[in-house]
């Protein structure tokens, strides 16, 4: 039954990884920018949720929409005000450095505002759990975390595939010039994409806060996780993120279960490098293939 429990835990963690990575993946696919401040945005989401829950007693799951809204605005401004400037002035590599710098600034700010100590969010229903057949248990927290992750990923997939703005985003990713010639304001689209990415990072932060304790320096791990998920699953699509996320979740739970709690990152890294060498565009490839 240990195996089943491990798989279940892996899936919960995997859903979270997937949600945390989908925004990173979107920016990578659409803008070609590696956003090293993505993990910091995830952490902001966690801290904002913690703050809302702590100060108003609002259920953490209900905090998700306002957190997403705030971070959407943050992402929009961040892209138009800073990233686009860096891309225009020098190169994509330079834009990556800008995001690296911003990540440090944000981490420092989080430490100053919220202290470097671990925080956690525990709603009233935190201690109820279901007992499944054969002694496998799953608590309500993790069921809702998995459910919320999957629902949000589904929503994003719907937006990208079925709505006008989703089509515009995909068109801009494939052929920026052509899209511009069709009257698309590419800069606006990029900024919206960034906003969406930040909003979903924020949502994953909220869910992460319910499942795990968190501290500002975790941001580096979440950026790295997102990168691994994208490399595993493929660039730019929610389904790629889901696949990569679930794989990563299962791998890291299994590794810490079978080899030792110290090794998930090492294992993850090994798989990352192998994957990059064997199949650089991920299992599902680039959703915007042919764009670059």
């Amino acid at each position: 039954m240990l195996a089943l429990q491990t798989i279940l835990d892996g899936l919960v963690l995997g859903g979270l990884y997937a949600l945390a990575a989908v925004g990173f993946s979107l920016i990578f696919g659409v803008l070609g920018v590696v956003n090293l401040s993505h993990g910091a945005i995830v952490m902001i989401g966690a801290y904002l949720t913690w703050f809302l829950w702590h100060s108003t007693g609002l259920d953490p799951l209900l905090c998700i929409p306002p957190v997403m809204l705030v971070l959407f605005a943050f992402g929009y401004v961040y892209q138009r005000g800073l990233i686009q400037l860096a891309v225009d002035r020098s190169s994509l590599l330079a834009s990556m450095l800008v995001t690296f710098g911003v990540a440090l600034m944000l981490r420092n700010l989080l430490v100053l505002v919220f202290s470097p100590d671990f925080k956690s969010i525990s709603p009233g229903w935190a201690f109820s759990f279901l007992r499944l057949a054969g002694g496998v248990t799953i608590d309500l927290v993790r069921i809702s975390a998995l459910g919320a992750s999957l629902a949000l990923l589904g929503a994003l997939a719907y937006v990208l595939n079925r709505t006008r703005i989703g089509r515009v985003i995909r068109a801009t990713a494939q052929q920026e010039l052509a899209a511009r010639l069709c009257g698309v304001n590419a800069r606006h689209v990029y900024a919206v994409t960034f906003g969406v990415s930040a909003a979903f990072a924020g949502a994953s932060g909220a869910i992460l806060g319910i499942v795990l304790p968190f501290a500002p320096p975790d941001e580096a791990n979440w950026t790295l996780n997102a990168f691994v998920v994208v490399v595993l699953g493929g660039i730019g699509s929610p389904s790629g993120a889901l696949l990569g996320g679930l794989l990563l979740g299962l791998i890291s739970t299994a590794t810490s279960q079978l080899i030792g709690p110290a090794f998930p990152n090492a294992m993850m890294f090994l798989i990352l490098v192998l994957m990059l060498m064997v199949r650089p565009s991920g299992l599902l490839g680039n959703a915007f293939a042919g764009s670059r």
Partner: protein
Amino acid sequence: MLREAVAKHRWWILLAIAGLAALAFVPFVLMPFHVRVGQLILLSTSLGLAWTLLGGFAGYWSFGHTAFIGLGAFAAGLFETQVLGLAFMRAEPLAGLGLGLLVGMGVCAVAAAIVAWPILRLRGIYFAVAMLGVAQVLAELTNSIDAFKGSMGLVFPRIPAFGLRQEAVFYYLLLIATAAILLIAFVVKNARIGHGLAAMREDEDTARMLGVPTERYKITMFVLSATLTGALGVIYAHSLGYITTGSVYRTDFSLNMIVYNLLGGMGTLLGPMIGAVIMVLLTQVVLGGFLNLHMFLTGAMLVALVLAAPKGIVGTWQAWRRRRASAAS
């Protein structure tokens, strides 16, 4: 070719020798606190130069070079305390330190050689982030495997030498290291490999087509850069006296090595040196009172730099000189 380069840069070389000689007198003149600032400047300068051997010369920007600071520090520390033992270190501190340096550098060289083959097949952002991963993983393993003593910490024996105070000892060690790395970098830059690397940095495929052994060159530079960074890690750890994972595997080290080069000028020798001096003076002296904002300020500095002067001080200066020369002709 090297002779030609020496002749061409003879004034710079004389200046460098004079500068290093002048720096040798610092511990006799300045207060201990200022000697420590001097230590930090030398450490930063040499780290910037060690990074540039790979990042500046070959164009492979490592985002996780602190991996080798940590690896060197822990390898030397474990060797000195567990293998040589404190009794030996007390009796023969300099020999112990020398052996520790060799072990630290050796471990870094071997580790780099092992990692090089898969990781250097990646280019650009993939390489950068993979190095970030290497640093993260090494730090985690050091911290969670008890034998490495990363979470408990390692105490380094003192290195009494020539009747000097500790901060002066490490100042001189770092001064020698800086001079050595500067010399190595100068030789590499002006040798055949340096020209091959410059070509490779601009266009790896064309360079290979012209016969540049790109594969061998980048592995060489990766191992060289890692080994020298490891040596600096060993010296730094000794100067701290006591290290944990967090004190040597520091993301801000990785970041700063890039910042020095960006600020000063990527791919040059003068660049990382200027960048390191400015950054250390700025953060330690001017902003010394805002310790809890260090990371924020370094990050802001990086952002401002990329936006304002992507070619760094030396690059901007060279471009200005070129413009003036072509306007005159």
